[in-house]
């Protein structure tokens, strides 16, 4: 009995150590936050388009097919790394991608797209982060998957990369079902 009491803190200590070690080695980002918008309708908003002299009205534009919403900016380095994968998604997978040009210089954004190609079906401008805050964005790039009913189903914080591309495509397919 006495021995049990003596030894139990040591066992507990090693159990805690094990838990910490597990958290250390699993692939996770502790600063990543879950989105509050999952399973909610896309926010209602109006925004100017970057390339056309038109107004984009949400949620009307989200109601026919699975759509990606990608927040990007030319000052964001990971966005540039992500760009070829967005291109791939729009060219190969025929996905509708709406780009939101977050706190950026419009001229620079246009040049950027001319140089790298344009994967977006429409690009909205968000000069003062109004849209970003409505979507709960806290770090660029962020990509949302919206289903054909205009419901947000998934958010990826950080870029689409070689590593997570296949998993991301799978997610899109899942949402499209």
């Amino acid at each position, binding site marked *: 009995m006495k021995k049990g009491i003596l030894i139990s803190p040591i066992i507990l200590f090693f159990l805690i150590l094990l838990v910490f070690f597990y958290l250390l080695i699993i692939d996770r980002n502790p*600063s990543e*936050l879950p989105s*509050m*918008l999952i399973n909610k309708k896309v926010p209602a908003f109006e925004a100017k388009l970057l390339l056309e002299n038109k107004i984009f009205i949400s949620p009307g534009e989200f109601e026919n097919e699975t759509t990606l919403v990608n927040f990007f900016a030319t000052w964001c380095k990971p966005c540039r790394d992500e760009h070829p994968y967005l291109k791939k998604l729009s060219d190969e997978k025929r996905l509708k991608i709406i780009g939101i040009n977050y706190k950026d210089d419009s001229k620079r954004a246009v040049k950027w797209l001319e140089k790298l190609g344009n994967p977006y079906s429409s690009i909205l401008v968000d000069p003062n982060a109004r849209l970003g*805050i409505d*979507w*709960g964005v*806290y*770090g660029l790039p962020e990509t949302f998957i919206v289903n054909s009913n205009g419901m947000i189903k998934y958010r990826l914080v950080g870029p689409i990369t070689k590593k997570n591309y296949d998993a991301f495509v799978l997610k899109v397919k899942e949402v499209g079902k």
Partner: protein
Amino acid sequence: MQRILLAILVYLMASQIIAINCYSVEPDEFLQNPKKESRARNISKNVRCLVCQNQSIDESSAPLAKDLRILIRRKIENGNSDEEIYNFLTERYGDFILLNPPFKINTLLLWILPFVFLIIGIIVIFLHNNKSKKLDYN
């Protein structure tokens, strides 16, 4: 000479303290009405900056923090109450954006666990005490 050095030293130390207490709110953000401004400051101190997650948006100089500070002030100018502003933020960013987590079912453990541990601790000490008393008598 020594006095001058001492003065410089004191000055440097003082400037450090001031630097630590300095806030990131920029002058162009201030509201004209001091009452509304103090309300905005108060809210800002309770709102987490999601970029540098252990700072409030009042202390943080991250662009998102500045956007949120401006948004809070605009909402105050529009006549929104403090609660409406907090609700607006948590609807978009979750309870995590509040530095003081609310008392809810999913945060129950967070609030209650310290007291549970305290009680367990008291029980353990009590039992241990009893036992050693018995040993003493023997």
